[in-house]
């Protein structure tokens, strides 16, 4: 559950560079600073930094941190393969075994290739290329989940939109009984689903939470309790004065 409580407005509390945050349920990057505190921010030396700049810096910092948490191998560390192993038997094998690339490079390549296919003129027939090229739209550009387009080769029934169908049922209680007896599987639709090519790795990720969903929660950067106070230098949250000191001594700006 979102925590909307604000610390009691004690006198000693707000140090320069800090602000209490009322959790409005919006993404902090959009509501970067409680409007109430705007004047103070502007009046502070060094506090004139634009809200936008802070929030994009903060977003980049979060992205870096997640990349760090999601890393498979430490690029700074190389552990040689010990002992004797077989020598490569073909040119292909030699090339592949010698690759020192990391997953990031392969995934970047995949996205670059898809982007190229998208720009290329559409071939006359429904080829795999055109189908694949349609996919990255699903996430990489819009970040909105769009149901994948069935291949051009299977027009008609495959274009039935399950989403509108569903909301139709939900809207009309009289039709709800039909839900227990769904329309039988349309063979063309089924075959389109089963023959559709895979999504790209990037496109396979789930969508971000809807804007009207439960608000995101914020935690103390130091102890993990609710984060009620926001550091104006780096955007991190802390729970109180004790953790504020610890934050400033350790992690402040670490991710910025």
């Amino acid at each position: 559950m979102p925590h909307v409580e604000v610390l009691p407005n004690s006198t000693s509390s707000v140090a320069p560079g800090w602000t209490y945050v009322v959790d409005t349920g919006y993404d902090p990057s959009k509501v970067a600073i409680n409007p109430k505190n705007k004047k103070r921010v502007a009046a502070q030396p060094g506090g004139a930094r634009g809200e936008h700049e802070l929030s994009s810096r903060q977003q980049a910092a979060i992205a870096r941190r997640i990349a760090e948490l999601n890393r498979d191998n430490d690029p700074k560390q190389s552990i040689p393969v010990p002992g004797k192993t077989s020598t490569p038997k073909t040119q292909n094998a030699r090339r592949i075994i010698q690759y020192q690339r990391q997953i990031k490079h392969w995934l970047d390549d995949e996205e670059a290739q898809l982007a190229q296919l998208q720009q290329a003129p559409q071939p006359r027939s429904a080829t795999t290329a055109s189908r694949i090229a349609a996919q990255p739209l699903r996430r990489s550009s819009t970040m909105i989940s769009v149901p994948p387009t069935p291949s051009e080769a299977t027009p008609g029934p495959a274009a039935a939109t399950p989403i509108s169908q569903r909301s139709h049922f939900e809207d009309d209680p009289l039709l709800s009984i039909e839900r227990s007896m769904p329309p039988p599987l349309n063979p063309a639709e089924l075959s389109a689903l089963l023959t559709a090519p895979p999504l790209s790795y990037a496109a396979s990720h789930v969508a971000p939470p809807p804007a009207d969903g439960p608000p995101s929660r914020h935690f103390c950067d130091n102890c993990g309790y609710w984060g009620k106070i926001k550091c104006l230098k780096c955007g991190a949250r802390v729970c109180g004065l004790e953790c504020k000191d610890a934050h400033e001594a350790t992690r402040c700006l670490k991710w910025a």
Partner: protein
Amino acid sequence: MPPKGSKKASAAAQTQTLVLDNGAYTLKAGLVSSASADPSYDDCTVIPNCIARSTRDKRTYVASELETCKDFGELAFRRPVERGFIVNWEAEKAIWENEFMGAGAGEGLRCDPKETNLLLTEKPNCPKELQKNCDEIVFEQFEFAAYYRCVGSTLNAYHPYGPDSLFSLPQECLLLIDTSYSDTTISPIYNGQLIQPAVRRLTVGGKLLTNYLKELSSLRHYNMMDETYLLNEAKEAVSFVAPSAQQFSRDLEWTWKGRLGDKRELDPSIVLDYVLPDYEQSIHGYARPHDPAKSRMRRGLQPVQGPKEDLLPLGNERFTVPELLFRPTDIGIQEVGLPAAIMESLSTLPEALKIGMLANVVVVGGNSLIPGFMERLESELRTLVPADYLLNIARAEDPIKHTWLGGARFASQRDRLKNVLVAKAEYDERGSGWLVRKFAGGG
């Protein structure tokens, strides 16, 4: 339907198949013969898929050799699989050779690839270039007699529904959730075939959870950034998933230290001390009830008494870390949690399939073993699924080996296997571009 095999494949098919579920964290492997009785979990060997180097004993451990390691302090890992895909073939080749072909290969795993079929799993949405690399190494370097590569999730359709089940295999509708080291994937499977456009993945997997706990512990207690092994062990020992968002809030309150001048008692049913191994007397850590006196000693607020030991107090870390599977936004990952992700995957399917999938949801992967995980998943999913739909969700009996066993069952049925295997001769004739297309379902 699996891709049609060729005459050449059937002619070259061997009686023995190496079934290999090639995970980022562990390999699940076993030799299966088409003549053998129904295989079981016991036929599967779990092997670390890494090369580890200790700066302390200056030794390098390849895969199963890690069993002999006595000091996991500052142990560094090299993992050939990244994000679930085989990326570094220099390391993977060394591991396969060590485990399946070398003098040190375990009994029951050692094989001559020239006389063996390979059934190899991959994660969904593998980049084509990596698939091509994999196929080329399998045939050109290892020279397996015949080979089939497929998305591991699909093999779970070859488990009988129940011991007395009359249904034929593969299962008609299966929604397979794989929450493992690299990430968490959702795969709707129809008659053993993956419905590609409905596959979804969440960034959060066991690796990210361990790294998160490592980061938190380093910030709050000691620098543990080089102690991946230790923190992974601690995570497995103490993590739990809060039953609900409300309970999460409650637990967070009860594990808060309070404010200056208003200190709170910590809930002793949640806060633990994890006793760190010293690698002299002990190799592994363990958890025990939190002792506030020890914390004060550690911070120099009280004279040190009793045995010298290092403690890692764990409070909200126990449940905020695995919470990321349900609320990735807690650390800023812009993705919905697992229950909503499942619904997103299903939203691409026609109603009848959706109903079938929800009636048969199976969860595999190590994260499903975290206490409370299944209960939370089921209860949140129940609130998202229309009330008149049947929801059947279960964790596989052995969520680590279940995909392997499905593969072993598949491989033990000669006709099924024959249909999908590609022989080396055919690869030599038609090349790796053709093979990637063939395994993707095209001719």
